[in-house]
């Protein structure tokens, strides 16, 4: 018997070696069902350990396999823990699979390669496919918002418009120079709006210099690496998604009605000494008989459809992922939309065991109509009694210079057609098992066709205008990378990487601008009367980059980690002597939980790692030819003019950011609670700054390497599984980012004001609002009275309202009386209803010297807070995002509250109600009179600054994963449905549409007629088969 057994085993062994899958009759047949908590699982791999014998579960989760009774079975499924079972002669083995929660084994994409999350020493955040898809996003900005600490995304609800991304604050002083670098499948892209978020497998955000430095001269603002999906081992998987969204305006603002408008006009005229004329009371004028609430006319319930289908899979030699998606998005403002078609083919082929070739091919076509800024500029200030539609059905033309917002929205063109093609091809050859060579070529074409047409009705002079503009951006990148990866003596693992790349970016623009088109019927630059020659032109601009880069990573038992990234970059943008730059970085990690002396805390702290990094990164945001002396054109009397407009600066070079980062990763209770904390200090020097020049030189500014900006901050992420039972799970994640920004130095006299109210100067944070502070409104003419040390006196009136004298602290005062004057020592005296400004220098003259810091647009803390509750197949998620401590400058409120322009500029009825109207009024706003001699409603004033803090319940999501035993009856693999409410609840004191405002450059928190925020109801279905 023993002998036979031995013989059998020997035979078995031989069979396995020679034919692998052929099985001996001596084996037993094992059957069973594989389940997870949702029911039977199809496609689970079952392998007899140590052999190639294997099978897969069917649609019902059932399997059957011939194995020796002493064998060991391994059940594997992606995203689940591998389950190992000893057969022990059993013939029925049922298995329950568990989803893997062990985050540390995840692989994270880093520049030009990948690393185990466990071995990361820098500050990198990885967002998985599942997290990205959770709120059915239409673009990457909405998919990422609030999910990454240190990444601030500010977006609008307008279809097709870019969001603002900031990683660890604003580091530079050039407009648009603080955008992170976006890398999609190894290729730099300028816009990420062309990517279908459903095609994304993961997004990695490289925040610290040590991680980003491998991208050298463009990485100072951090790097966002986006990887698209690849096929997974197994049979073809078809996945389909559909979502339907209804959006509506989240908040409406007060607008004066017809009656309120006439009352306002009467009051304003009265205060001006004009007691008779009311321009808009004429009830017989057919153009002035309406009572419109413009927000109801301009905003609607908008519907968005999003459909995506993908097919993916992999067999021995090939991996594939093909997808197509369509987004039909309506904006909440009438006649705005974005229709986008995205397609993608990702394929990898193992041509020989050592050679892999592959490509990534993505084509996006989109068609958009965006709102014109004019369409909203009159939204709240055009008199309500002005018509929008005439009795004959046509649109009302411009009345008293007030354009018709409905006509602005409905007629004409402001359309964009965008065609984007990205191609990436690579070959990877294994020279040795440890040594890989990868070469790739990537190319991108982005063609944006802009069409603007303004029909006669939109122009004061009834002159039509049309513009057609084509922007073609092309770029290519070639890269060669050698990677050496080896583990010595089990404990020492080493990765060395070296590479070279060359890149070119080119933009060509052709623009045709015409006036006096013959007809409104031809909405294009055709059949016109004249050409706008200064705007009809073609331009060409390009830059190139050549780079060498390398990385060394070393790990001893995963306990001591070292990583260094180096890059040497040459850019065409700078003078010959300054074009090459070197960007080194290093980081170390220490997994102290693996130390023997730390074993005592193992029961609580399962894993902990300390990270330290330092690095230098760069920024080359200056224009393509910014070191040259250049000329530009203007136009006079049938002839172009050419004049110098850029001063030569041969010494122009890189901007450098030095950053260190200290981080701590701790995971408690076997991964139930995870904490990631980072502190960083980021100092940018040689800032590429558009330095103002004394314009007597003939030039207003020039790019120079000057000034320093500092950002310091904390980032904390906590993930916790609060309850984890078989049927019910509750998990929470919270991320917080605190950033402090400061301009450390700026050239002498370099103080600048952006949008009048934002100061750029030494010692101030970017986004600091600077101007005059309104302390109160003088109730009486006599209230403008102060003692010689500027204490305000109280005027006393008798029973008949006659002024009798002053009191100070309840006692009659008969000393010297001083008064505030406007602008000069002999300027006008402030009176009742004027603003009492803060006289900073105590000289009684309210002038430019009395300006002070009024607020700052940058929030103190931003973050996200998510709660997932799962019960069987149901998941309820509540996702909050918040930004606290930032201010908003409400420029639109200022423009409609100025009073001085015209009686028909309607203000905010709430503000008018709270304005000074008669002597004695204690008011918040000054008197609404037209002759605004004292400049009471000046722009740079604290009257328009509000707290922009908000907490938003961004998403309430209820999802249901239909049990598999039900799903399989209709022939599907999985089916889930979800319903969401997005942006439904916002807690904020801000009076405008929305405190979340995308900004370009320095005007942080600047609300000028922004697109209102939408709140959405969304329904989505996901099917896999």
């Amino acid at each position, binding site marked *: 018997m023993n002998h036979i057994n031995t013989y059998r085993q020997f035979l078995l062994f031989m069979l396995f070696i020679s034919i692998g899958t052929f099985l001996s009759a001596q084996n037993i047949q094992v059957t069973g069902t594989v389940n997870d908590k949702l029911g039977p699982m199809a496609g689970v791999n079952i392998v007899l350990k140590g052999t190639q014998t294997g099978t897969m579960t069917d649609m019902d989760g059932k399997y059957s396999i011939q194995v020796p009774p002493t064998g060991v079975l391994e059940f594997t499924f992606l995203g689940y823990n591998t389950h190992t079972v000893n057969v022990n002669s059993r013939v029925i083995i049922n298995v329950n699979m568990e989803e893997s929660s062990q985050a540390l084994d995840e692989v994270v994409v880093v520049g030009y390669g990948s690393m185990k999350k466990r071995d990361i020493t820098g500050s990198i955040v990885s967002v998985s496919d599942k997290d990205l898809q959770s709120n059915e996003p239409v673009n990457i900005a909405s998919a990422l918002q609030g999910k990454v600490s240190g990444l601030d995304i500010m977006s609008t609800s307008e279809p097709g418009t870019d969001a603002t991304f900031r990683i660890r604050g604003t580091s530079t002083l050039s407009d648009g120079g603080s955008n992170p670098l976006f890398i999609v499948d190894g290729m730099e892209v300028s816009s990420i709006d062309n990517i279908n978020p459903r095609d994304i497998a993961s997004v990695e955000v490289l925040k610290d210099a040590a991680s980003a430095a491998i991208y050298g001269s463009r990485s100072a603002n951090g790097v966002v690496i986006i990887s698209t999906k690849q096929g997974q081992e197994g049979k073809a998987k078809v996945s389909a998604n559909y979502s339907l969204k209804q959006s509506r305006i989240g908040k409406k603002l007060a607008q004066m009605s017809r009656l309120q408008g006439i009352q306002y006009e009467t009051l304003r005229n009265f205060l*001006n*000494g004009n007691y008779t004329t009311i321009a808009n009371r004429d009830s017989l004028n057919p153009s002035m008989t309406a009572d419109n609430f413009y927000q109801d006319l301009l905003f609607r319930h908008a519907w968005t459809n999003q459909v995506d289908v993908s097919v993916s899979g992999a067999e021995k030699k090939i991996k594939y992922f093909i997808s197509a998606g369509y987004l039909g998005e309506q904006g909440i403002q009438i006649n705005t939309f974005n229709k986008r078609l995205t397609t993608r083919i990702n394929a990898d082929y193992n041509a020989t065991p050592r050679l892999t070739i592959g490509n990534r091919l993505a084509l996006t076509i989109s068609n958009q109509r965006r709102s014109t800024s004019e369409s909203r500029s009159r939204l709240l200030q055009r008199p309500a009694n002005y018509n929008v539609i005439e009795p004959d059905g046509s649109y009302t033309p411009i009345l008293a*210079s007030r354009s018709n917002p409905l006509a602005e929205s409905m007629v004409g063109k402001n359309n964009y057609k965008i065609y984007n093609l990205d191609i990436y091809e690579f070959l990877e050859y294994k020279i040795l098992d440890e040594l890989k060579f990868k070469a790739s070529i990537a190319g991108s074409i982005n063609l944006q066709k802009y069409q603007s047409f303004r029909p006669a009705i939109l122009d*004061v*002079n009834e002159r039509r205008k049309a513009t057609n503009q084509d922007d073609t951006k092309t770029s290519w990148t070639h890269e060669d990378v050698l990677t050496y990866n080896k583990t010595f003596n089990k404990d020492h693992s080493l990765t*060395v990487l*070296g590479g*070279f790349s*060359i890149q070119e970016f080119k933009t060509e623009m052709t623009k045709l601008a015409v*006036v*006096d088109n013959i007809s409104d019927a031809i909405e294009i630059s055709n059949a016109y009367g*004249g*050409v706008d*020659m200064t705007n009809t032109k*073609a331009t*060409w601009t*390009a*830059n190139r980059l*050549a780079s060498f880069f*390398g990385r060394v990573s070393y790990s001893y038992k995963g306990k001591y980690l070292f990583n260094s990234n180096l890059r*040497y970059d*040459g850019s065409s943008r700078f003078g010959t002597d300054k074009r090459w730059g070197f960007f080194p970085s290093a980081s170390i990690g220490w997994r102290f939980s693996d130390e023997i002396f730390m074993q005592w805390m193992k029961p609580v702290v399962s894993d902990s790692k300390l990270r330290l990094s330092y690095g230098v990164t760069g920024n080359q945001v200056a224009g*393509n*030819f910014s070191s*040259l*002396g*250049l*000329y530009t*054109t*203007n136009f*006079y*009397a049938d002839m172009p*003019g*050419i*004049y*110098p407009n850029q*001063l*030569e*600066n*041969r010494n122009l070079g890189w901007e450098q950011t030095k950053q260190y980062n200290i981080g701590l990763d701790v995971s408690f209770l076997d991964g139930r609670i995870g904490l990631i904390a980072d502190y960083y200090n980021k100092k940018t020097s040689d800032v590429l700054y558009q330095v103002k*020049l*004394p*314009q*007597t*030189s*003939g030039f207003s500014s*020039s790019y*120079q390497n000057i000034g320093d900006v500092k950002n310091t901050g904390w980032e904390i992420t906590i993930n916790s599984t609060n309850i984890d039972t078989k049927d019910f799970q509750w998990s929470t994640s919270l991320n917080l980012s605190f950033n402090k920004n400061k301009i450390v130095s700026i050239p*002498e*006299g370099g*103080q600048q004001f952006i949008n009048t109210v934002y100061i750029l100067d030494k010692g101030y944070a970017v986004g600091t609002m600077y101007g005059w502070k309104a302390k109160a409104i003088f109730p009486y003419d006599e209230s403008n009275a102060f003692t010689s040390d500027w204490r305000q006196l109280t005027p006393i009136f008798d029973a008949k309202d006659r002024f009798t004298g002053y009191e100070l602290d309840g006692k009659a005062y008969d000393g010297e009386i001083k008064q505030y004057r406007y602008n*000069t*020592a002999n300027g*006008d005296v402030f009176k009742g209803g004027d603003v009492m400004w803060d006289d900073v220098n105590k000289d009684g003259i309210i002038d*430019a010297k009395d300006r002070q810091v009024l607020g700052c647009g940058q929030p103190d803390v931003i973050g996200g807070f998510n709660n997932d509750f799962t019960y069987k197949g149901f998941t309820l998620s509540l996702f909050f995002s918040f930004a606290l401590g930032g201010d908003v400058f409400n420029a639109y409120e200022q423009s409609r509250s100025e009073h001085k322009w*015209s009686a028909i500029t309607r203000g905010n009825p709430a503000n008018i109600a709270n304005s000074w109207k008669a002597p004695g009024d204690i008011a918040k706003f000054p008197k609404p009179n037209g*002759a*605004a*001699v004292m*400049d009471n409603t000046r722009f740079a004033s604290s009257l328009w600054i509000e707290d922009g803090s908000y907490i938003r319940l961004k998403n309430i999501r209820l999802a249901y994963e239909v049990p598999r035993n039900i799903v399989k009856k209709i022939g599907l693999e999985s089916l889930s449905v979800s319903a969401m409410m997005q942006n439904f609840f916002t807690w904020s004191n801000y009076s405008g549409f929305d405190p979340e405002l995308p900004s370009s450059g320095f005007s942080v928190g600047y609300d000028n007629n922004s697109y209102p925020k939408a709140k959405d109801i969304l329904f989505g279905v996901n099917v896999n088969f």
Partner: protein
Amino acid sequence: MKKIYAVFLSALLFTSCLNDFLDVNPVSDIATSTFWQTDNDVRAALNSIYADFQTNYNKNSGGNYMTWFEMRSDNFIGTTVSSSMPTFAANTNKLNSSHASADWNVWYKSISTANYALYYIPDVQGLTEIKKNNYMAEAYFLRAFCYFNLTRIWGNVPLIEKPTLSLTDVEKPTQSSQVQILELIGKDLGEAVKLADEGLNDVFRFNPGALYALYTDYAMWMHDYDKAILYSGKLMDLQRYSLVKGTEFGQVCADGTTSENIWTMKWSYQNNKQNWIIYMMCRTSAPQMIPSEGVKNLWNTEEYQADLRRYQTIDTTVVYASNHISSPNGDAAIWKWQPGERVIEANEKYFPFYRYADILLLRAEALNKQQRQAEALELLNMIRERAGLSLKTMNDFTQASDKILAMEDAILQERQLELLGEGHRWFDLIRTGRAMKVMNNYFENYIEAQTSDVCPRFTEEWQLYWPVYYNNILENANLVQNGNY
């Protein structure tokens, strides 16, 4: 590790080859290295300065033109107080350094281009001597025109004679005195007279007539009456100019290319966008300035009622109410650039810098000052005759205690109506020493009599000039604020 060394060694080797790859030169932008080569380059560079003038006058929605040239005089009432277009403040002597039109920078942009031209033209190949000289004359002329306006508006201003070719040339100059500026203008005009080609004529750009007109204007400011007589005489000797008929008076501004126009700014709607100056002065709702009651009343006097220029300059049907200063009548526009029309924007607009009537009257003033009153009277009567007015005789002046002053008053009054809105009145008042008296009288008997407003009086010379824009001082701490602004 060796491989790393290899990579970085090759990096160093390839660097030089890669430098060729990294040489990317502009295609659609013009660089200094490729400019200033041909006739066309010079023409385009000088042409850009005229475009600057358009930008400059049109800036702040036409506010620059209105507040620099007209609003400070008694010709118009300003109706707005915004710091970007302070027509009321300019009119009532309440300017301050935050008013956007206090910014002189666009003038310096023009001066910079003129300095480039003066620097580069001598080396441009393929130009005939005559042409080269004429371009030099044009550059001198344009620079003189810029400084003449700068110093008349601000008094003391920085004097920049050299081009700023690279960042190292950038300086923070202090202001030079008005005397020094005027000296440079005289030198530039002298050079231009030597170099100009008398045969050329282009009413929209530099031409000998324009040069002599500017020289005459400059000489009058300098009280150099001999030079004024000399250059106005040279202008007449060109025999190109004559007065248009009184019934066609409107054409001198609306057309701008008549026999009377010496130098005109041409405006093209499609290429230069909206002309705010004309739009703001002519529009019916919320006009930025309306003719003062004094001007309206003068035209209503018996002497001037028959004036052919009157209805071609202003809307005569408008009646002023007692509160017309605080609540201006929207119809009270000056419309000489498009008589009888309001907001219609024609494709082409014209804005005369100099025309023959202006120079004739300046010459009359100069002759009067040089005791050649008969000749002066003849010129004055040319203008009055064209306007359909009765002719003055010597008897009208002989009774006066000061004959010269009386005739000067008559000429200035004629200039006020003839050139209303064309930007001459304020400088006429300054150079004849009348500004303070006329304006203080205007405040007392008009503005303050009809409103509750209190206007600071003109008492010191600095008040005649604009403050330096606060931002210009921020850019250059070496600048000094004018007077007590």
